[in-house]
C-alpha cells in the first residue's frame, strides 16, 4: 500500500508543478492570442461556448494527438471542446453503441461500407453547409463514397491515402544498379533479376493485422484489378455485377500469384500470413528485401518503429532511406490510382456538432493538419507546400491528377465479404496454399443474397 501512497504523492507534486506551468503558460498565451485577430476566422462557429463534441474513431495516439493539435485553435476560439475518442475496437463497438443508444456525436468511418450500414439507421444527413463545402472542395467520387445507399449525403471525406505504391530503398537500388520499372512486365523482369542476384529477396510482404488479417492481400487484388481490367469492370466487381470468380478476376489473382506465391520472390509464402503488415516493410529498411507494395501510410510506421527515413528517389546515399515508385500498370501510360480514406458522419444535429463537421471540410483545417506532418487529404484546397513528406507529396499529386481513382474495394463491398471472406480467403491463399480458383469460388459463395 505504501508504494502506492508514495507514488500518489509524487503525482500530486507533479500535478501541482504542472498546474503552475499551465497557469503561467495560459496567461502568456492570453496576451498572445488575446486579440480577436486569430479568432476572427472562426466567427461563423460562434455561440457554442462550453459545449463538447465527441469524435469516435479508429485513429488513436500518437496520430490522434496531431488531430487534436490541429483543432486546438478552433477549440480555443469557439469554446467547443472536442473529445477525441479513439478505439481499436471501433468497427465492432460503433454498432454496439448506435444500437445501444449511446452513439457518439461524430464518427470517423474508415470504410464507406460500414458507413452505409448506418445510413437511415442513426446517421444524420449532413447539413446543407457541409454538403456545399464538400461539393466545392472534393471530386464527385469522394462525395459519392460519403453518400448512403438511400442517396442521402451523410459524411464528408477526411484523410486520404494512396495504395498504388511500391516502397524501396533508393540506396539499395543504386548500389545494385537496378532501375525503376514502369510496366508490369518490367516489374516481373526486375524481380527475376534481383532473385538471380541471390543476395536480396525481391519482395517482402506481410498480411498480418490482428483480426483484420488479410487486408493487404485484398489491396494487391484491387490494385491489379484496376490494371488488368478497366474502371467499369472494377465497379461491376465491387457491386457484384460480375461474379467474384469471373474469368476477369481469375486473371487478376493469377497475376498476383506470380509475385506473392513465388518462393523465389518472397521466400516462405506461408509466413506472409503471420508477418504483420508493419513488419512486412521492415525488410526494405535493413536491406534484406528490395520491394514492398504498400499504401502511403506505411512510411510513418517504418520511420517511427524501424528507423527508416523517408527520402526522395534521388537520395541514393541515405542509409535506411526509403521511398516509393508508382505500382506500374500493364503499360507505362496506364496510371490508375487505388486509395482509401475516412469519412466523418454525424449521429447528432446539435449546432456545435455541425460546426465541427463543417470546420473539418475547410481548406484552413486541411492545410493545418497536413502541415503537422504524415497526413494528407483529397481536399482541392490542400497546398502541397504543406505536405512535407516526399511520398505524401507524390500521393497528393496522384489524388489531384489521377484519371482513374478508385476506392479500396473491400471497404465498399458488403461487410460479410469486405471485412470477412475476402480477408480470410486471401489469408488462406498464402497460408494454406489454397488454389486461385478455390479462393475466388469461396468468396463468391459467401456473397450475401439480399
Amino acid at each position: 500500500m505504501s508504494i502506492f501512497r508514495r507514488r500518489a504523492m509524487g503525482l500530486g507534486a507533479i500535478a501541482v508543478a504542472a498546474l503552475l506551468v499551465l497557469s503561467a503558460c495560459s496567461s502568456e498565451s492570453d496576451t498572445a492570442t488575446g486579440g480577436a485577430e486569430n479568432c476572427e476566422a472562426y466567427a461563423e462557429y460562434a455561440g457554442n461556448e462550453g459545449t463538447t463534441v465527441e469524435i469516435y474513431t479508429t485513429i488513436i495516439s500518437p496520430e490522434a494527438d496531431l488531430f487534436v493539435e490541429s483543432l486546438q485553435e478552433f477549440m480555443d476560439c469557439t469554446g467547443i471542446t472536442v473529445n477525441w475518442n479513439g478505439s481499436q475496437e471501433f468497427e465492432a463497438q460503433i454498432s454496439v453503441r448506435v444500437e445501444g443508444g449511446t452513439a457518439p456525436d461524430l464518427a470517423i468511418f474508415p470504410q464507406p461500407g460500414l458507413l452505409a450500414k448506418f445510413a437511415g439507421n442513426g446517421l444524420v444527413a449532413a447539413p446543407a453547409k457541409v454538403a456545399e463545402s464538400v461539393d466545392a472542395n472534393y471530386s464527385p467520387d469522394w462525395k459519392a463514397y460519403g453518400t448512403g445507399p438511400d442517396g442521402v449525403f451523410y459524411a464528408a471525406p477526411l484523410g486520404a491515402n494512396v495504395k498504388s505504391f511500391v516502397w524501396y530503398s533508393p540506396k539499395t537500388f543504386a548500389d545494385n544498379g537496378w532501375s525503376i520499372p514502369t510496366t508490369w512486365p518490367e516489374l516481373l523482369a526486375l524481380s527475376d533479376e534481383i532473385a538471380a542476384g541471390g543476395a536480396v529477396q525481391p519482395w517482402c510482404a506481410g498480411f498480418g493485422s490482428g483480426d483484420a488479417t488479410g487486408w493487404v492481400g485484398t489491396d494487391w487484388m484491387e490494385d491489379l484489378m484496376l490494371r488488368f481490367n478497366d474502371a467499369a469492370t472494377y465497379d461491376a466487381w465491387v457491386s457484384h455485377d460480375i461474379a467474384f470468380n469471373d474469368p476477369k478476376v481469375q486473371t487478376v489473382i493469377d497475376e498476383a500469384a506470380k509475385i506473392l506465391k513465388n518462393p523465389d520472390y518472397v521466400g516462405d509464402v506461408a509466413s506472409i500470413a503471420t508477418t504483420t503488415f508493419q513488419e512486412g516493410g521492415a525488410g526494405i529498411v535493413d536491406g534484406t528485401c528490395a520491394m514492398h507494395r504498400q499504401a502511403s501510410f506505411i512510411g510513418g510506421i517504418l520511420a517511427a518503429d524501424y528507423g527508416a527515413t523517408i527520402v526522395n528517389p534521388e537520395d541514393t546515399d541515405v542509409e535506411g532511406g526509403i521511398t516509393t515508385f508508382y505500382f506500374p500498370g500493364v503499360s507505362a501510360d496506364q496510371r490508375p490510382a487505388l486509395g482509401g480514406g475516412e469519412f466523418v458522419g454525424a449521429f447528432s444535429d446539435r449546432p456545435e456538432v455541425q460546426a465541427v463537421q463543417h470546420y473539418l471540410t475547410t481548406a484552413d483545417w486541411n492545410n493545418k493538419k497536413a502541415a503537422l506532418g504524415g497526413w494528407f487529404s483529397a481536399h482541392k484546397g490542400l497546398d502541397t507546400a504543406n505536405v512535407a513528406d516526399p511520398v505524401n507529396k507524390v500521393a497528393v499529386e496522384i489524388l489531384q491528377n489521377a484519371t482513374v481513382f478508385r476506392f479500396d474495394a473491400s471497404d465498399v463491398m458488403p461487410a460479410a465479404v469486405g471485412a470477412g471472406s475476402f480477408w480470410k480467403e486471401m489469408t488462406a491463399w498464402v497460408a494454406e496454399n489454397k488454389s486461385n480458383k478455390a479462393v475466388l469460388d469461396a468468396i463468391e459463395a459467401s456473397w450475401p443474397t439480399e
Partner: protein
Amino acid sequence: MSTLNRSRAKSAFSSPIASAAAVVIATLWTIPTFGLLISSIRPEQAINNSGWWTFFTNPEISFENYEKVLFQGTLIQPPMVQYFFNSLAITLPAVVFPITLAVFAAYALAWFDFKGRDFIFFSIFALQVVPLQLTLIPLLQLFAKGLSINGITIIPNLGITGTYIPIWIAHTIFGLPLAIFLLHNFLRQIPRELVEAAKVDGAGWFTMFRALIFPLSIPAIASFAIFQFLWVWNDLLVGLTFGAGSKEVAPMTVRLAEMVGTRGGGWEVLTAGAFVSTVVPLIVFFALQRYFVRGLLAGSVKG
C-alpha cells in the same frame, strides 16, 4: 493439534520426485511471464531485434518504458496512472455488489424451502453460458434509454451513461451466475443441525443469516472475491462497452488494448503496461491467498 499432525505428516509425505516435478512445472509456467518482465526493462531497439533471453549475455536496462507508460500522457491520452485508478474504482464495487447479492441468493436457494427452487438454481447455473457479447446491446439500451413496453415506462432513462454505474451493474450481472453457483455449493454444506439449532433458539431468517450463515461463509466469500477481482480487473469487453467511450471511466485493459495492434512497434511500452496491470492482481492474490486454505469449495468435501 491439527498443525502438529500436519507437520508430522509432512515429513512422511514429502517425496523428492514430487517436489522436483512441482518445481519444474512452476519454472515452466513462469518463463513466459518472466520474458515479459525482462522485455519491459529493455530498450525499444533491443526488444525488436533480439530475443529477451539475450538480456543475460548483454544486459541493457532502461526504466524509461515504465516512465513513459505510467506518467507521460499526450494531448488526448491521460497517462496510465489515471487508468489505474479507474480500474480500481470499477473493480472494488464490482466485487462487493455481486458477491453480496450472490451470498443472499445462494442462502435462499440453499436453505429456503419453496417450490421451483431447484429449477431456479439450475437456470442460474445454465445462465453462465450466455455469451457476454450478446447481452451488450440490450443492456446498453436499458442504461441509455430506460425500458418501456408499449409506451409505458417501466424503467426511466436514468442518465447514468458515461459513469461507473453501468459498468458496476454489468459486472454484477455477469458475475452473479458463477458466484451463486459456487457459493450455493458451499452454503448447502453447512450442517443442518446448526441451522435447526438456530431456529430452535428463535432466530428468524435474517438473524440466522447475520449471526450464523454469513460468519461461516467468510472464507468462501474471500476466496471467491479474489476470482471476481481478477476477472473484473482483467476484463476488457465490459469496460469498453459500458464506459461508453469515456476516458474518465475506462479501465487499464482498454488502454492496453489500444496500445496493441495499431503499430508493429511500441513493444517497449506495451510490455511495461502489461506488467503494471498485472501487479495489482498479484498483490491481491498474495494478500488473500491464505483464505484459499479454508476457502471456496472447502465445503464440497463430503463427510
